[in-house]
């Protein structure tokens, strides 16, 4: 049972991250590849939501960063509302569209991060994590093609 998780994670760019993400969800022990993909999309949604919370707080603590924070707000809303939704519906029937949505999530996160002046992003750790999770998720979705 854990074998599928292990086998699947070995085919992703970040084996240990993949393992820790999937094993943290009890559904993973009985999931097929689609199920594992959906667990990770859930993680993307959770991380995106958490990041939106951090962005909101940063408006108060770093008001001079309003402009890049606005951009990040837009980008992360796209991740949580649009990319995640598309990935969930596409992963079951037409996985290439799920791949596109997951890749886009990484793009949105990177663009958000890139909008801050050097060293001033309040969410660098979170955007880096988003990119890593998207890389792993994408690899799993590609197994469905």
């Amino acid at each position: 049972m854990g074998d599928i998780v292990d086998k699947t994670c070995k085919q992703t760019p970040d084996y240990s991250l993949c393992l820790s993400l999937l094993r943290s969800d009890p559904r993973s022990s009985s999931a097929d590849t689609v199920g594992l993909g959906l667990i990770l999309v859930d993680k993307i949604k959770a991380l995106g939501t958490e990041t939106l919370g951090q962005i909101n707080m940063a408006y108060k603590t770093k008001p001079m960063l309003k402009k890049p924070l606005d951009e990040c707000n837009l980008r992360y809303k796209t991740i949580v509302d649009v990319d995640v939704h598309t990935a969930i519906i596409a992963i079951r029937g037409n996985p290439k569209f799920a791949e596109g949505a997951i890749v886009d999530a990484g793009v949105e996160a990177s663009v958000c991060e890139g909008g801050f002046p050097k060293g001033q992003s309040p969410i660098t750790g979170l955007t880096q994590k988003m990119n890593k999770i998207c890389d792993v998720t994408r690899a799993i979705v590609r197994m469905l093609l």
Partner: protein
Amino acid sequence: MASSDALLPISAREEDPLLSDGSRSDPNAETHGRRRPVKGLLAVTFGLFFIAFYVALIATHDGSRSNDVKFESDGTATTASRARLAGVSEKSNDQLWKLSGDRNTVAFSWNNSMLSWQRTGFHFQPGQNWMNDPNGPLFYKGWYHFFYQYNPNAAVWGDIVWGHAVSKDLIHWVHLPLAMVADQWYDANGVWTGSATFLEDGSIVMLYTGSTDKSVQVQNLAYPEDLNDPLLLKWVKFSGNPVLVPPPGILPKDFRDPTTAWKTSAGKWRITIGSKINRTGISLVYDTTDFKTYEKLDTLLHKVPNTGMWECVDFYPVSKTLVKGLDTSVNGPDVKHIVKASMDDTRIDHYAIGTYFDSNGTWIPDDPTIDVGISTSLRYDYGKFYASKTFYDQNKGRRILWGWIGESDSESADVQKGWSSLQGIPRTVVLDTKTGKNLVQWPVDEVKSLRLSSKKFDMEVGPGSFVNIDVGSAAQLDIEAEFEIKKESLDKILGDASAAAEAEEFSCQKSGGSTVRGALGPFGFSVLAHESLSEQTPVYFYVAKGKDSKLKTFFCTDSSRSSFANDVVKPVYGSSVPVLEGEKLTMRILVDHSIVEAFGQGGRTCTTSRVYPTKAIYGAAKLFLFNNAIDATITASFNVWQMNSAFIHPYSEEAVRALSRT
């Protein structure tokens, strides 16, 4: 970064990404060493040059950011799984990771002015929301019909139904109500791609894939409710659907996109449906007499290992001798057959030319080394072009190709602007009767009806020149051009035994784009160019000498500097293009806001690009002719037409009536 080194003599094959405008002030500076006049005067002159050069660098560097960052095309592939990521969707996390590390990035936000400019003037697109594959194109009772995968609710994929539009000329469209929606269990999760077949009595059947309520892919039959309605507004789904379910050995999600049927010599109808077995792409074959019950052949139409799932398979005859289209059922000694498939793994459409054996429904390629789906096999288009489908236009005896042109931008931009995706301008497709080895595509003649004013130019362009071509507004253009490299320049290169052969190594994708100068290229047009050249999209020929001393010609579109935006994909697209003895180099370019369609050598090599300039928009979009070769002078003879908009109308009876009168 700026240094006096930049003024030193440079070697023949040079790369200077910082001088992204491609202009070189004096080619002779490269071949002569620095002279030694009075030292004091030299120092002052040098100082002035240094300052001016530094200023120029600052001015151009902002636009050349993407050239400064060099990516591996496949990121940092180290494991087998990474290798599978390579060569896929060009939207790559890898590329953007590197960009976000580049702290020279200016923070960038899309505004509505930039976004609304992106909408095209004369390409097919719905009023809003998401579109993908072309479906069931056909000509009936005086109207061209176009159906398409559509999301009525959002600018991203989902809730897929069949959109519908009609036209008299494949250019001026009026949208119609949705043709089919997801109202049955057998298409509850999507009314997916399908094709039309005309029966002998002139009636129409439509076969399409439904994604069932359990996400199983099945094939369904539908037909017009009223054949007396030329608009074919209403469609009826066969009560006995689905007519085909995944056969044994085929997974429930590997069975989609049925083709137009053709008549076998036994008098039955035959269709093919793409699929896969493990990593082998295949095309299944079914015979039917009534489109309701089918017999699956034991043989496959064809299969190619390691190509993955075959989507949107297309299968049709082409004449070996005549430049015209053929009905899908035509067969005979003067005919070859094309097998085309869309590769799910790579999002690339590939085709191959071969021979069809009607007795057992199989097909073999003329050249197995470029079999369907192999990375080196032929493509309709070397840019952004997928899920394409042809139909036989019995009105004008043509075979016409539709292709889905997706976006290359971010989904937040798509959501903000409220739409996503275009269709290419429909193209005629014929076998290249001169080479016999490739198809030739060309925008349908009717697109010329959009041509407004034209300007004709004849000029000689020296090496390292950028020439502004004043045509007024430059966002909607049709350009036809003929180029010749001056004989002296060609002779010099061919006669120079020491001049390195580069044709074997060169590729549009990997050779650095249009700022990389060679002996005989690049030269062509730069479209959607800002006058500062900080944003521009060069479409060009690059002629290279091969090891056999023969010349090889490449036709590329370089979108790497098309936009300041850092959330869009900006590849260099293109391919080699066959040039036969005695032929001049010709290109045609259709520019229409965020899409550039380029056709080399009469359509032997075609490349579609999506570009999203932020500054080179509205009145600031300009056209340049350029020659970035080191030594060669070229002559260019060309016409530029302003293109009218097609004014595609939302559904109304008045709009239909207005179009009927045309």
